[in-house]
């Protein structure tokens, strides 16, 4: 196929932009911002093109997996816009990109939050803008790479590479605690990711065991499509110190799950998040909180469900329990917190627990809901952090007890904040309701009690979101809030599209289901082992 490598362009154009930035003098902040924004706009154009060109119900034959014996077979998950080149031929690692509905939506979110991140940069809030913008563009490339790669090694490559620009961003911008928080984040992530690396290597050798005696590739594979169609050898449980534990495949799943659970994060692997989110400035958080944590959930769905169907079932309830724990625990912490940024951070823990729960329902409603909720969360968390950031900047404190009655001084912010709060608490009619309802339905189909537990979480969410919103907006003005000014036009223009999207998705979420249902049914089919048409009629 001789088509334009659109997906490669998505990865390369930002890097090109970052290089171009080096030619701009550091003092010319306007030019730097223009270059960054234009680069991202160009990428946004490509992403939009890809999404428009995305076929809702593609012919499965268009996405062929190359088996280890050299033959091809339709991939269980249909990817589009595929690009396939050798990378390290000796070990069968390939540069294999592709997009499915899951990655498509997240890609849209990705470019969205990064564009937002680029727009909110200002000379006032961001020193050394060239450095910053370069890192921003690199982070985008890495996150997009995570979403687009179909090869496990390539996926891991981007997964870890993402940490580098993030490390610089987090360690250079933020309050005085940023150093510790950054190291905590990186260590957490690296520790879990390295476990995943071992699991990836194990998968490779396990696939090698399935090689035909003669002919074929001669080596194992990292390719997701191939791995999905490669039977793994029979597994004996590993015994550690004489105690029989799990099979290697189960261990591998646990390693993957750990990596994703940290990134999401699921309680009890979450403690990096409040620290990190609290010490990071809002312009970084727009994309850091906006996309990075979704990648964990993405991983659960893309790899956890597909490569490890057996272990995913074995440990399903463990993950679900952690997800429920995250929902409730995050909510409780948000409820007792006084730092407005940390409240938002804990709310994020709670929300993302729901996403993971949706994924582990193993049915179309849950998975579709999870996809929607990932996008929603990206929008909400970005908006919330921007708002909280504005409040912090105006008031000079983050203590909810010291800020009150802002509605009087900031009526415009109040409206935005209200809508975002409502979205955050899952108000029916808002975007999150679509996702939450779907996930709850999926969870209900899995086990009714889950829906009830989520219900408790929803009530708590309502409580803490209102506590946050009312806490800063209502009651008589405190001295600290006496002189604050309302939103600038710029700030309002940044928040407006986010809020508009929240309302729009709530009003017309139809595109989500329309685009995703084909791929989602494939995921469900893979994880449940039922054929695609049957898996659709779950229960």
């Amino acid at each position, binding site marked *: 196929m001789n088509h334009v490598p659109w997906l490669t362009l998505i990865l390369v154009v930002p890097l090109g932009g970052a290089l171009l930035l080096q030619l701009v003098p550091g003092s010319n902040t306007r030019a730097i911002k223009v270059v960054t924004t234009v680069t991202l706009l160009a990428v946004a154009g490509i992403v939009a093109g890809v999404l428009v060109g995305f076929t809702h119900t593609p012919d499965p034959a268009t996405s062929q997996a190359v088996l280890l014996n050299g033959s091809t077979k339709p991939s269980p998950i249909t990817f589009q816009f595929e690009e396939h080149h050798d990378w390290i031929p*000796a070990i069968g690692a390939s540069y294999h990109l592709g997009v499915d509905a899951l990655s498509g939506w997240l890609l849209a979110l990705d470019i969205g939050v990064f564009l937002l991140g680029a727009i909110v940069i200002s000379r006032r809030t961001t020193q050394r803008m060239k450095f910053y913008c370069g890192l921003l563009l690199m982070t985008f490339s890495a996150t997009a790479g995570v979403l687009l790669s179909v090869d496990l090694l390539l996926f891991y490559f981007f997964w870890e590479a993402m940490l580098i620009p993030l*490390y610089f961003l987090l360690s250079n911008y933020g309050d005085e605690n940023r150093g510790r928080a950054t190291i905590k984040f990186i*260590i957490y992530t*690296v520790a879990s990711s*390295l476990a995943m690396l071992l699991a990836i*290597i194990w998968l490779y050798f396990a696939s090698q065991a399935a090689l035909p005696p003669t002919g074929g590739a001669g080596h194992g594979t990292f390719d997701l499509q191939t791995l999905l169609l490669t039977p793994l050898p029979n597994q004996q449980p590993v015994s550690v110190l004489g105690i029989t534990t799990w099979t290697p495949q189960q261990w591998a799943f646990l390693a993957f799950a750990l990596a994703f659970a940290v990134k999401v994060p699921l309680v009890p692997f979450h403690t990096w998040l409040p620290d990190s989110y609290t010490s990071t400035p809002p312009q970084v958080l727009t994309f850091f909180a906006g996309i990075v944590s979704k990648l964990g959930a993405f991983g659960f769905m893309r790899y956890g469900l597909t490569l490890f169907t057996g272990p995913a079932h074995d440990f399903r309830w463990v993950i679900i329990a952690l997800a429920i724990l995250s929902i409730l625990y995050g909510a409780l912490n948000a409820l007792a917190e006084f730092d407005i940024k940390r409240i938002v951070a804990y709310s994020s823990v709670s929300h993302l627990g729901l996403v993971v729960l949706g994924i582990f329902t193993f049915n179309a409603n849950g998975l579709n809901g999870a996809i929607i909720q990932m996008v929603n969360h990206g929008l909400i968390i970005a908006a919330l952090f921007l708002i909280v950031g504005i409040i912090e900047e105006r008031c000079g404190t983050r203590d909810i007890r010291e800020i009150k009655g802002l509605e009087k001084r900031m009526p415009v912010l109040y409206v935005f904040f209200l809508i975002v709060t409502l979205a955050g608490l899952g108000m029916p009619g808002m975007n999150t309701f679509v996702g939450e309802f779907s996930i709850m339905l999926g969870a209900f189909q899995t086990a009714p009690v889950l829906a009830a537990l989520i219900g408790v979480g929803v009530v708590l969410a309502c409580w803490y979101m209102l506590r946050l919103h009312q806490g800063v907006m209502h009651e008589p003005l405190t001295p600290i809030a006496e002189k604050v000014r309302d939103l600038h036009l710029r700030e309002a223009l940044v928040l407006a599209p986010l809020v508009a999207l929240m309302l729009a998705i709530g009003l017309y979420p139809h595109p989500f289901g329309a685009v995703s249902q084909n791929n989602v049914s494939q995921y469900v089919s893979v994880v449940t082992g039922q054929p695609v048409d049957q898996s659709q009629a779950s229960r």
Partner: protein
Amino acid sequence: MHVLAAIPPLKTPSANDLIGLLPVLVMSGGFIVLMLLDLVVPARRRGWLAAGTVLVLAAAMGVTVWGWFDAATPRTIYFDAMSYDRFSLFADGIIIAISALVVLISPGYLNRRGLHYGEYYALILGAATGMMLLAGADSLMVIFLGIELLSIALYILSGFARTEERSQEAAMKYLLLGGFASGILLYGMVLIYGETGHTQLPQIAAVLHAHVNDIDPLFLVGVGLLFVGFAFKVSAAPFHFWTPDVYQGAPTSVTTFMSVGTKVAAFTALIRVFSYTFADSWDKWNGIVAFVAIISMVGGNVAALTQTSLKRMLAYSSIAQAGYILIGVAVQGSLGTIGALYYLAAYAATQIGAFAVITVMSGRGEDLDSYDGIKGLAYRRPYVAAAMALFLLSLGGFPPTAGFFGKFFIFGAAIQGGQSSLALWGIATSVISVFYYLRIGLLMYQRPKEGETHYPWPRTSLAGGGVLLASAAGTLVLGIFVFLIYSVATSAQHAVAATLQ
């Protein structure tokens, strides 16, 4: 009377042997020439010596590259004294390259430190020659001599700042402990010689292969002692004690050189001896190697965790890196060797870069060594700081840098070889290592406070910048275009396997 009939006839070396020795010949020739040149070059023009050294190294590199194609079929020269194969040429290439990089950053550094003497270049070349001999050695005798050649040169280089107490102390420690370790190494060689009747590796391998089920404990003791000797040279724990002290005390450019060169050469020999010559008794010695690997990874990384001296931190880090590479030795299978070679290349590019930053940034007074010295570096020398950060990330094993694929292949080898526990140790300690690498990064990017004085970093010279650029490029190329070095390492592995199995 047939007096001579009773003893074997003498064998005569041929011209082919000389061809196989070409890289070493160029180096040693250059060594002699530079030593003589030093006598005539005026003191103010010692930069010329550096240029001359680089020329020699370039010539050697040319010969090595030529040899890569010439030695498509591996062979041994001088009656199994050395091998002429891609395995040793791989190491030669790295050694020559890092020597060139070190020589490029040296004049500026030595001038600032008031140490710019001509002997320096001759000694660097001498040590490099020793390293190449060690890397190509195919007999115990050449291994020993190679080690001694490089060691003696490095003893002197460590004490090159002869008026400084730290430098003296470093040299003394290195010398005494080095001699001690040489003794242990030699005793191991004796036992192996006594148990096999030979000192040439191919013949030892043949003996072992023929008697694989009948291994004498004494031989294994010899293997163990030999390994101790090697472990000392690659600074693997618990034989690493000299490393931090010597790295810290020696002039930084020397540390740069020896931290990479010694390791590359010694590991090349170690792999040749253990993974291939002793391959048949792998199950007898792999426990010890794995033990040392684990101790190195844990000890190196943990001790580096709370360091406040840059050079010591990098020293402990290099101990840990030795542990990772040892995993490649401890596991059976070609991937272990390939991984170790890849790791060595990656380590060379990265470590030389990291030390080069310290070298290039060292001012006239004390060496840049304390953590305080790099605080806020990014605000004054953004590109240098960025390069340093890249090297640190590579040491930490982040893609898209070289370090990632080094670890990837090593862990892959461990899993393939059924030694997942080693890989687990590896990742656990990698996590620890990330902590202290990133801490340096944080310091460099720490915003300087108003009116705060900082370490007087010198201006970056063209050569210094070039070296940093080259290391950074190498780090990235090894991290992205993996197949380049991977295929090279694979053919190196094929070569060593062909000569010894």
